[in-house]
């Protein structure tokens, strides 16, 4: 821990916990927030420390680092962890939850312990792992939820796989409840989705691509919600993408506090027309939907019915994407563009900054039980400085991630992370 003390002043403080955005500064030392508020300026003095460094934030946003609870890695190896850490830092993401869909699959105590023991030093950001909900992600037998939780897995999910067997899913939630384990689930009825590769509708018909109706998502979601309400287990639907699903969660959440909802940044900011001429970087799950559905997602963020925004960061190598659309690998990188893309909602859809930050940092931190997502006296100094108005073109060659399958390729985004700090230490600087 460094003994350095810094005062960041002349900042626009975004504080999702207080639902406020206000001018002020932050006093950081020993990796923690020592003081924060409007009273911290260039003249701020303290007896607690000497050698204080004063940093002018120049009116930019200073806010909690983002918490992204849906990040895929190809494996728990050192280079993969370093790569994901670099991408996250560049995107202002200071805490991530990784999915168990790695090789080897995270379904064993030993793998959880291995990742937890090494991740932090290599990644530089806070890296937490989820564990598989079923053994080998087979959708048939429950994994050792109790032992995995004791070893440090903070959530349970089969990642991009949905569990079709309702009997098993009922038992899983029942069992998870007694260990107070968080279950995160991707919802898609495989039988109903068939071999569809994009949203069912006129555009899919024109493109001649096999498509799947959005009810494939809503039907399984409604099953899940019914079981979650019955068991009282902590249930989080990882990504919804359509109006019908939003209505379903809104209804269930009225009486059940154990239910939370996520949405992918892609479904918030893109629609099916972005696929254009079979652009495989937009082959995503859930598939991009209609503009009406996208607008429903934005309303869900505003109303709080959708709690969390995730990047669904899913690196795919170039070869996997160089195929006809239907044969191309699914997924896109997203850590580095998460905030800039989300700021579209601020710039053009009237979503307030603190609302965005709640969905991007505070809510996921609370759900995962992590000390993150908020800046208060005594919390860890995980924060970012953001220029809200900086325009930049997303060029694959500029991305830190080794895989560059971004759906925002060549788009101009407004807003850029300038610096990222974890426990007071700068781990990313846009200008260097």
């Amino acid at each position, binding site marked *: 821990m460094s003994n350095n003390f810094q005062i960041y002043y002349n900042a626009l403080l975004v504080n999702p916990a207080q639902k406020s955005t206000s001018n002020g500064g932050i006093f950081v030392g020993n990796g923690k927030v020592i003081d924060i508020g409007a009273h911290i300026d260039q003249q701020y003095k303290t007896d607690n420390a000497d050698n204080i460094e004063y940093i002018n934030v120049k009116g930019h946003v200073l806010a909690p680092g983002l918490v992204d609870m849906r990040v895929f890695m190809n494996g728990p190896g050192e280079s993969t962890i370093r790569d994901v850490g670099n991408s996250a830092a560049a995107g202002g993401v200071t805490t991530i939850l990784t999915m168990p869909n790695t090789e080897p699959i995270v379904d064993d105590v030993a793998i959880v312990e291995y990742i937890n023991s090494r991740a932090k030093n290599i990644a530089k950001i806070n890296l937490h792992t989820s564990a598989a909900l*079923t*053994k080998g992600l087979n959708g*048939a*037998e*429950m*994994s*050792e*939820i*109790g*032992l995995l939780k004791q070893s440090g897995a903070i959530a349970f999910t089969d990642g991009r796989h949905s569990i079709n067997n309702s009997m*098993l899913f009922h*038992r899983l939630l*029942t*069992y998870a*409840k*007694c260990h107070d384990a968080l279950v995160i689930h991707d919802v898609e009825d495989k039988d109903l989705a068939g071999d569809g590769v994009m949203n069912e509708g006129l555009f899919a018909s024109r493109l001649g691509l096999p498509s799947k109706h959005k009810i494939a998502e809503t039907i399984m979601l409604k099953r899940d919600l019914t079981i979650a309400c019955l068991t009282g287990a902590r249930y989080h639907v990882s990504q919804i993408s359509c109006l019908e699903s939003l209505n379903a969660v809104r209804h269930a959440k009225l009486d059940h506090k154990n239910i939370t909802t996520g949405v992918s940044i892609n479904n918030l900011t893109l629609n099916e027309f972005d696929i254009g001429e079979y652009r495989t970087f937009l082959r995503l799950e859930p598939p991009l939907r209609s503009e009406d559905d996208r607008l429903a997602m934005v309303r869900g963020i505003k109303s709080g019915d959708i709690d969390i925004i995730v990047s669904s960061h899913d690196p795919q190598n170039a070869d996997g994407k160089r195929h006809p659309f239907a044969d191309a690998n699914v997924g896109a990188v997203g850590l580095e563009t998460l905030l800039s893309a989300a700021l579209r909602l601020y710039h053009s859809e009237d979503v307030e900054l603190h609302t965005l930050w709640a969905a991007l940092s505070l809510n996921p931190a609370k759900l995962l039980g992590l000390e993150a997502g908020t800046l208060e006296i005594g919390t860890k100094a995980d924060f970012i400085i953001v220029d809200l108005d900086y325009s930049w073109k997303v060029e694959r060659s500029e991305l830190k991630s080794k895989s560059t399958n971004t759906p925002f390729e060549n788009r101009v985004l407004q807003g850029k992370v300038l610096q990222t700090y974890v426990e007071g230490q700068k781990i990313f600087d846009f200008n260097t």
Partner: protein
Amino acid sequence: MKNFENMMKPHFSHKHLLGIEGLKEANITALLDLAEEKIEQSRQETKKTDVLKGRTQINLFFESSTRTQASFELAGKRLGADVLSMNVAQSSIKKGETLLDTAATLNAMQPDLLVIRHGSAGAVELLSQKVNCAVINAGDGRHEHPTQALLDALTIRRNKKRLARLTIAICGDVLHSRVARSNIILLNIMGARVRLIAPPTLLPADASKLGCEIFHDMKEGLKGVDIVMMLRLQTERMQGAFIPSVREYFHFYGLDEEKLSYANDDALVMHPGPMNRGVEIDSIIADSARSLIREQVEMGVAIRMAVLECLSNNWLKKNESGA
């Protein structure tokens, strides 16, 4: 007033023993008291009497069983009955005979006592309606196993001098256990406090309404407990369907010294057998001085002798009064 006194006096005047449900405290006490005498009898050099001389007892086991069948066989023989054990699991049912045809066939052989085990709940009661003799349920599906509950009660009463106000924890696979069901009912009748400790996937629906306190944590559940009853976990339930693995089950629900230390210092441990060592119970506990597991087996023979004798006498009285 005299009627009331008669009711309170220990007695067991039923025609069959199909379950613990429906019995009264006085019925259970009568059977336990008689069983005490049978323990003494079984400990003599000459164990055999002739109270059931001339009677025919048929053990009809549609599910294979070693210990229960042996226990009933021994009980009948020590009372002087002619005992025939039929393992129907491998015989006529396989040849397509229906349950009721089997009953009619057996009934034609004029048995006096029929001991039946069957894989389906309610099957023993169904058979009892079709035969003219006393029927004893030796286990029907997940429903009841009354002689096991009675032998457990006898074991507890001999070691703790009472059943009322004891706190008894039943741990493990309650969902699939007829032993647990019979015990829950019996212990409630006798005024004991019953706790169930199990993962929620191994508990029956609305278990708390059966007259039990529910726990999912052994350390919580075992606090202040006088008796720990472990249940057997069937192999086919171990892998992924109801619980994740044997390793996780033992970690959270297997009875070891550490978990047992949360129970009362004089708490005793029971298991209906056969045990899975290292799955639901640590060998050190199973073989320790606090284990009543072998005593339970001895009590099994005694309680079955008591049940056979009572039922046989009840039919005798009924026939005499009927004639």
